[in-house]
């Protein structure tokens, strides 16, 4: 085995490559290195495409919630699967998120207090989603509710609406 630690042996052998050989080698090396670079980049892109799912097994963002008659006037109904409150007042009906605007805990409707309370940090919201007190910075998010031609209501979680927008039923 050669002694790599012994600089005197190998350093004396060091000498510049001849010009022609160098350029030829460089040309092939460049092709190879370039190709491998492209391959690496391509592999990265393909991997990213591979890793971004084409289908999601998540609850649908819009869903039917039955006819308005399912919801009594002056009631708050919690839909556990979608984490949404369906609130019906004498004015009409709206859907609002059950996720606390503070740190994302799931709030609970307290019928005895007429209040939506967050168990994590004590935020309290009124029935219409506005903040009563607590650390929550914003009122609960409202979602669009639409009446379908067959008389059922449809909630669209992707369409955010102002709290004042209430479906008259």
């Amino acid at each position, binding site marked *: *085995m*050669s002694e*790599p630690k012994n*600089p005197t*042996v*190998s*350093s004396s*052998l*060091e000498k510049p*490559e001849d010009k022609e050989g*160098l*350029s030829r080698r*460089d040309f092939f090396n*460049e092709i190879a*290195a370039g190709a491998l670079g492209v391959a690496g980049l391509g592999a990265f892109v*393909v*991997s990213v*495409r*591979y*890793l*971004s*799912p*084409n*289908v999601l097994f998540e609850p649908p963002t819009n869903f039917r919630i039955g006819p308005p008659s399912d919801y009594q006037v002056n009631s708050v109904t919690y839909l556990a699967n979608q984490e949404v409150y369906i609130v019906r007042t004498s004015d009409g009906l709206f859907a609002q998120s059950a996720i606390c605007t503070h740190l994302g805990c799931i709030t609970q409707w307290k019928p005895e207090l007429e209040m939506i309370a967050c168990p994590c940090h004590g935020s309290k919201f009124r029935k219409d989603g506005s903040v009563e007190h607590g650390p929550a910075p914003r009122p609960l998010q409202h979602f669009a509710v639409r009446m379908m031609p067959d008389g059922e209501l449809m909630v669209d979680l992707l369409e955010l609406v102002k709290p004042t927008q209430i479906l008259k039923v």
Partner: protein
Amino acid sequence: MTSWENTIERLRRTPVWQSLFRRGPARTNRTRSVAVFGNIFLHLLPVKVRDASLRVRATYYLGSITFFLFVILTVTGVLLMLYYHPAVPEAYQDMKDLRFVVSSGVFLRNLHRLAAQAMVVFVFWHMFHVFYRGGYKPPRQFNWVVGVGLLLLTLFLSYTGYLLPWDQLAFWAITVGTNIISYVPILGQPMRFLLLGGHGIGENALLRFYVLHIVILPLFAIILIAVHFWRVQKDGGITLREEHGRKEKD
């Protein structure tokens, strides 16, 4: 010098590059040696090899191919793991998803499966080739035993991977295979019970095969491969045809 070479050259002078590689361009035997020694992966190779061992007919690169198949399997395997749930029946549905909805999913699975089959073929081929070359003879006895260990690991890796798709092919192949184990006197049944985590092939078996397939067996394989490479170097390089026989006698 081309601009490309200049860029590389400038890059090589940066402190970061130098801290990483501790050497200049490998244009001399010394720097070439340093390149091998200084790299944790390359240092498993000898710095110099005999010219004769570079000839294709010396090895047919069978060992290298087996190792590269292992590399391909590791890369594709890690990617496949990201879409795989070792559960019944999700495992099977994941196969369907890989095929039908994941971009390039079916390609990676094909590649993994193909490389796995090829690795079994090449590991056998490598072994037979080495045998005919007399590679098991002193001083390479130990490396031969390591190689036998790698053969068994390869078979076991391939076998554990066979169950993971949880289709009929997998299920019954493993059923037949594990029943062969149970023929071992006295220890057979307990061994099968331990391997399957139950009396039949179910969710426990799937999880055990999965853990064996992705963690335990590859870990052993990597260690043995490192030893195997290192010992090739230490035992005097690969076995050449001329080494034994007539030349020994003079």
